């Protein structure tokens, strides 16, 4: 393996390019029109334009990504998460093109990627599953059939995308009246996020905690599980905070979850990095939820408590190497790690997406802090993709130190130009529920409902005074010097000629350049 094409964008593309660099491997970025100047493009050794802004015209275009790999002489492909990461056609296309797909085989992707098949595999491996439909509902299935299935399982139910993950294409339905609309929304979101609008239905387990086991599996039959991650703090099924170890898992639950995860992975013929997700009820009983056949957003949490680089191992496993980690080590936490996801969303406006240009940025640093991001001052946050700006991961000797470090880091972090979820995250971190680890997967939504839209960044009057003075000084400086005093915010106009149109021949000339570079490599 010499050169890896990273079939993704944003922070995860940056993360994978870093791993390539560390392992002495070449890297190829792909990009849509609006990402032409993005961080991952500049970081990689080479870059190939793969089409327009809509994911379906670029990051979901298997043909163009394979062409880009051929043109640049890449011999492996890392899919990141989202986009094509759990698409078996993509994994197959890579294999057919003699490219090493850094992930499980297409067959394993298909087995666990179908949430319904994965449930059958888990059940056959003796792992308990949440009651739900064995079949999936494509667009051709009548509403009445879906309604019957939901009735049989019993409300409340969850509508989930068969190809899904990350909370996309997922809806809770409390009663039959809301089913049809929820199915439509879930299908529409699933279709645009995963290119497959099939859904299935699962019983909604009341007040569960979400625990998951990261695994690594090589091509020689070794499967290594890691200490569990807890991801119970979710807003509408989107993980907000993730931590490891779980504040509630004892050694017995840890080893039972790890055993179950290894059993599922082995039954599925799974290789490379993956995550087996579980719901844990108040009595400590657990249910298999799904397998995420990819590197996960929250993988750094495990990296910090295990002292292992998961992306390095993904690449080494794909290259045929044997795992040399022992589960005795990987199941022993070294300290505590907590991750906070930071999104370009306005929490005070109901978490409305907030695309735009970053005009000023101060990122957190210092002891125990890792910030995996992709934005810089001047970055344009496009409307077409997920709104994740970065992940702040804090490591501490124990949970309270990790919490204190995360709090300090979030206070240091300042993003100007778009609204971010930082004020919301600071608020959440200061809640007693967080300190006492009293939460389940619906707890945050309940808390938010109680707040009824009260703003998150409750302000000290002295802070308002300082802000007022600063605004006057900026205007006065501008008036007396004639220089632009502050950072003008002018979001790009997407509808009216907002395309970042370089020379019309951009794609061809980039490819030609990439080809030349490929010959050199």
């Amino acid at each position, binding site marked *: 393996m010499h050169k890896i094409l990273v079939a993704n964008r944003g922070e995860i593309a940056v993360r994978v390019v870093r791993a390539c660099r560390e392992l002495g491997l070449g890297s190829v970025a792909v990009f849509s029109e609006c990402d032409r100047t993005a961080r991952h493009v500049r970081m990689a050794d080479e870059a190939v334009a793969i089409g327009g802004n809509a994911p379906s015209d670029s990051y979901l275009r298997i043909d163009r990504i394979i062409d880009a790999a051929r043109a640049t002489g890449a011999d492996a492909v890392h899919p990141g998460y989202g986009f094509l990461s759990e698409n078996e056609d993509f994994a197959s296309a890579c294999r057919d093109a003699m490219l090493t797909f850094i992930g499980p085989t297409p067959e394993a992707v298909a087995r666990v990627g179908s949430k319904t098949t994965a449930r059958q595999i888990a059940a056959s491996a003796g792992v308990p599953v949440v009651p739900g439909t064995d079949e999936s509902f494509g667009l051709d299935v009548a509403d009445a059939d879906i309604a019957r299935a939901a009735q049989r399982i019993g409300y409340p139910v969850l509508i989930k995308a068969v190809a899904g993950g990350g909370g996309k294409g997922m809806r809770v339905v409390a009663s039959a009246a809301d089913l049809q609309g929820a199915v439509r929304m879930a299908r529409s979101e699933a279709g645009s996020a995963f290119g497959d609008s099939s859904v299935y239905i699962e019983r909604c387990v009341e007040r569960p905690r979400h625990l998951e086991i990261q695994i690594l599996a090589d091509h020689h039959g070794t499967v290594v599980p890691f200490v569990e991650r807890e991801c119970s703090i979710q807003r509408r099924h989107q993980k907000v905070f993730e931590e490891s170890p779980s504040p509630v898992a004892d050694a017995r639950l840890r080893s039972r979850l790890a055993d179950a995860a290894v059993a599922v992975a082995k039954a599925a013929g799974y290789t490379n990095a993956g995550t087996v997700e579980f719901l844990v009820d108040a009595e400590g009983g657990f249910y298999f939820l799904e397998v995420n056949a990819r590197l996960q957003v929250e993988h750094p949490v495990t990296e910090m408590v295990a002292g292992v680089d998961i992306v390095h191992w993904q690449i080494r496993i794909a290259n045929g190497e044997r795992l040399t980690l022992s589960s005795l080590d990987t199941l022993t936490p070294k300290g505590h790690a907590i991750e906070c996801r930071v999104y370009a969303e306005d929490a005070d406006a109901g978490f409305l997406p907030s695309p735009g240009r970053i005009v000023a940025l101060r990122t957190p640093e210092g002891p125990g802090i890792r910030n995996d991001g992709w934005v810089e001052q001047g970055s344009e946050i496009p409307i077409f993709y997920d709104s994740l700006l970065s992940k702040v991961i804090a490591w501490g000797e124990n949970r309270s130190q990790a919490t204190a470090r995360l709090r300090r880091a979030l206070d240091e972090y300042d993003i100007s130009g778009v609204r971010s979820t930082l004020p919301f995250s600071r608020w959440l971190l200061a809640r007693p529920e967080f300190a006492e680890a009293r939460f389940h997967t619906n707890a945050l939504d309940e808390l938010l409902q109680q707040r009824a839209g009260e703003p998150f960044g409750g302000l000290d009057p002295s*802070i308002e005074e300082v802000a007022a003075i600063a605004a006057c000084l900026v205007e006065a400086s501008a008036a007396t010097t004639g220089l632009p005093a*502050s950072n003008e915010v002018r979001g790009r106009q997407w509808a009216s000629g907002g395309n970042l149109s370089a020379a019309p021949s951009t794609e061809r000339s980039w490819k030609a350049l990439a080809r030349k570079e490929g010959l050199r490599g």
Partner: protein
Amino acid sequence: MRFEVETGRRRRTIEVRRSGGGWTVAMDGRLMSVDFTRVNDRWSMLVRSVEGDQGSNAQASEPSSVHGSSYDIAIESQRQGRHIVHVDGHVVPVTMGVPGRWRSGSDDDGPGATGPVSIVAPMPGRVVKVLVAPGDAVVARQGLVVVEAMKMENELRAPRAGTVADVRVREGAPVDANAVLVVIT
């Protein structure tokens, strides 16, 4: 220079003038010496009250004599006279006025009980669904248009009951922030 400034629900009159390398600021009868210096994309702000000390230190020319509360400031200028000021990471919207010519409130009229109401896109995105047609009667909070941005679908609802007078977008069309989508009378 004299400014009227609004933060939260409070209006203040603030007067600033250059003084040595920094500024003298008068606010609510208090006098402050402020060092306000650009550092890349942000500002460093040092504030010291000078009331009662006869300005002896304020006249010192050594920058190291500046001491007091320190703040990290970043400023987003949105429209004329509107800023979002970040103070140590806290986000504060600030509206500027000049005495006698207050600028706020005029261009942000909320929906009234009568008259046409425009439903505008709260962010740039793509229209995935238009749920009403001209002539439709709608009730308050009824869904009108679904706009998608960053993979999340957001349903925009009627702020009050009325009749759909105009639908200015079609499904699949991209829209800019503040574009009028639907008009209700």
